[in-house]
């Protein structure tokens, strides 16, 4: 018999997290939007969102998400700060003499747009021109992106967010694709993996961001040796997937590496039973999936674990897009062309 996931327990877990998180998770306060998105991704991937959240609750969540939007005021000074904040600890919206006090973040914007779509919103209240302009401001000469103004952080996570935002909005005018592709190619390590910057160690999370960005831009062909990259990704499987060479398997890489394998056309080459068995070991008794067996769960590992499990057991679950963490049915309906599998070489 095929390995089963404790679907109802996990649905309950995500529902509880949407209602509240304990103080030990204060370190997630600036990324609450991402955790909202992840809980909704988990419920969607389990096929349980409509069962667990009423229409009224969805409306309330949509309002909270729009409450985090930093709108453009038409001035050049504020342009780069627009989009969605990571949560409500910033601000306030109208009273900041110091504009950086209420800064959006490309990760917040990406998560908010995905969460809104999962909740059935039509994005009609999204300040599209402001978001596109912010992306334009945040792209660097190297082709890489900063997450928000005032930081020296730049890596493929933010390229991915910029690409996902552009694909969802159907407007790529905020991204210089050639420059972004050039940066990603510079992150290809000779071992076949991909990194956060040239010469750094290959890493499954950055591999995902690089490969998914290229897929969204329709530029997977830019990878110097796709076969070698596919091999590096498949080599990460030791039962579940590890994120780096000689590290233990970790449930979240069942998505990061698993999705990259899907995008590189390797779906049929995975030992799906072994990945599934590992994820079941990471399940916790009262719902949720932990990073490693016998640890406490968190929404990130739970949601990515569920999606990774669904890649390996496609019959039991709604099909999720490996590029956008959205169901493929939604991607098709919205006509987000680049996110469809058919455009990704399958």
């Amino acid at each position, binding site marked *: 018999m095929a390995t089963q996931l404790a679907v109802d327990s996990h649905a309950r877990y995500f529902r509880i*997290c*949407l209602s509240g*998180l*304990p103080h*030990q*998770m*204060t*370190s*997630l*306060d*600036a990324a*609450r939007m991402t*955790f*909202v998105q992840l*809980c909704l991704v988990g419920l969607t991937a389990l096929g349980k969102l409509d069962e667990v959240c009423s229409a009224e609750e969805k409306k309330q*969540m949509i*309002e*909270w998400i729009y*409450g985090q939007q930093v709108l453009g005021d038409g001035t050049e000074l504020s342009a780069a700060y627009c989009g969605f904040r990571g949560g*409500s*600890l910033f*601000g*306030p919206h109208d*009273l*900041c*003499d*110091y504009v*950086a*006090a*209420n*800064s959006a973040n490309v990760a917040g914007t990406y998560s908010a747009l995905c969460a809104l779509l999962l909740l059935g919103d039509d994005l009609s209240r999204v300040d599209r021109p402001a978001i596109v302009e912010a992306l334009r401001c945040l792209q660097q000469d190297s082709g890489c992106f900063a*997450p*928000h103004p*005032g*930081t020296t*952080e730049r890596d493929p996570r933010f390229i991915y967010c910029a690409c996902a935002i552009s694909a969802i909005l159907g407007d790529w005018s905020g991204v210089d694709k050639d420059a972004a592709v050039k940066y990603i190619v510079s992150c290809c*390590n*000779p*071992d076949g993996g991909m990194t*956060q*910057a040239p*010469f*750094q*160690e290959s*890493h499954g999370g950055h591999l995902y961001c690089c490969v998914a960005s290229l897929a969204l831009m329709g530029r997977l062909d830019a990878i110097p040796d796709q076969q*070698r990259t596919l091999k590096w990704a*498949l*080599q990460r499987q030791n039962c579940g997937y590890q994120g*780096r*060479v*000689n*590290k233990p398997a970790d449930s*979240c890489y069942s998505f990061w590496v698993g999705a990259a394998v899907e995008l590189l056309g390797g779906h*049929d*080459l*995975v*030992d799906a039973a072994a990945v599934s068995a590992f994820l079941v070991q990471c399940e916790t008794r009262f719902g949720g999936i932990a990073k490693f067996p016998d640890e406490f769960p*968190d*929404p*990130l590992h739970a949601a990515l674990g569920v999606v990774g499990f669904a890649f390996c057991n496609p019959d039991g679950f709604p099909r999720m897009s490996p590029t956008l963490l959205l169901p493929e049915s939604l991607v098709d309906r919205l006509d987000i062309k680049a996110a469809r599998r058919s455009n990704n070489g399958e």
Partner: protein
Amino acid sequence: MVRIVDSELDQEDLPSPLPMSEQEEWSDVVPIPQDDGRHPVCPIAYKDDYREMTDYFRAIMAAGEVSQRAFDLAGRVIDANAAHYTAWVYRKKLLLDLGLDISSELDWVSRISERHIKNYQLWHHRGALLELLLDPKGIADKTQDERMQIPAIRRELQFVGEVIDKDSKNFHAWSHRQFVVRLYGIWDQEMAYVETQINQDVRNNSAWNQRYFVLTANQPADVFVLTDDVADKEIAYVMDKIKLAPNNESPWSYIVGLLMRHAPNMLYERLLPSINALAAADEYALAVSSTPFFWSALVDIYEEQAKALAGAEQQQAEVMAFASEACESLATKYDPIRAKYWEYRKQTLKTASAC
């Protein structure tokens, strides 16, 4: 990625036991409570001190107050929630606007770092501070030895070294180490450091990656040429490490990756004889020939060799047959978890040789 941090404050940063609302120093500030809407999603059950601290922090940051107390409060907020991205931006702005001592700020980062050692913002703040503290242009005429004596550089390498001593695969620490080595051009000592790390743990892939960095990044892009001498030295080094632990992916993928990128012909001209000799040596034959990395390297090497034999059909077919056998061994014996991949690879070999 997710860290559960119960904030503990440094001794010297300990807040007075009084709530901020009862402290004279803050009496002129009207705190701005969090506006979480009528129906918050994923609300966090904050501790009282965090809630109050962020209420005051919102008020002074919104006003853009430039003061020592604002700087200190930003630090407390960061220590309680190191992913607070605007607090880092504000702290750096205040540091510059107030003209505070950069060196002391690096010390502060060191003090809080243990609690936030996998936080991206902390490492980037550190990198930005270092550039402010010591302009690489100012030391351009110094020798490597002289540079290594500069206190800022010594302190930085010591800090990163201590982090790596505690967690030898800390991704951020290795990344920062590359940043420091490159920024100040201190390449001479780095290979010795890499070797110490590999000697401590031959499976530390971060250290193997740093070896590639030191070998190839010390010059403008596209200038690095892998000479025969260097290749031989690297092959010998890798063989020694494979002897210690044959079933260790790092040295195999290091040497195959290095040669494939910079001198593919050396894969079959120089690496192949070495690994075949190792696999034939009584002492290592069994261990080496039962690791999937040996067979996987053979597939890559033979495939590369077959490409070079275009035109010499018979020899090419022979080499392809070796590659195919290696795939077969991997699928059936040495790497069963990737059986489907090796079957697929075997098929693609056939297609390639038919072209």
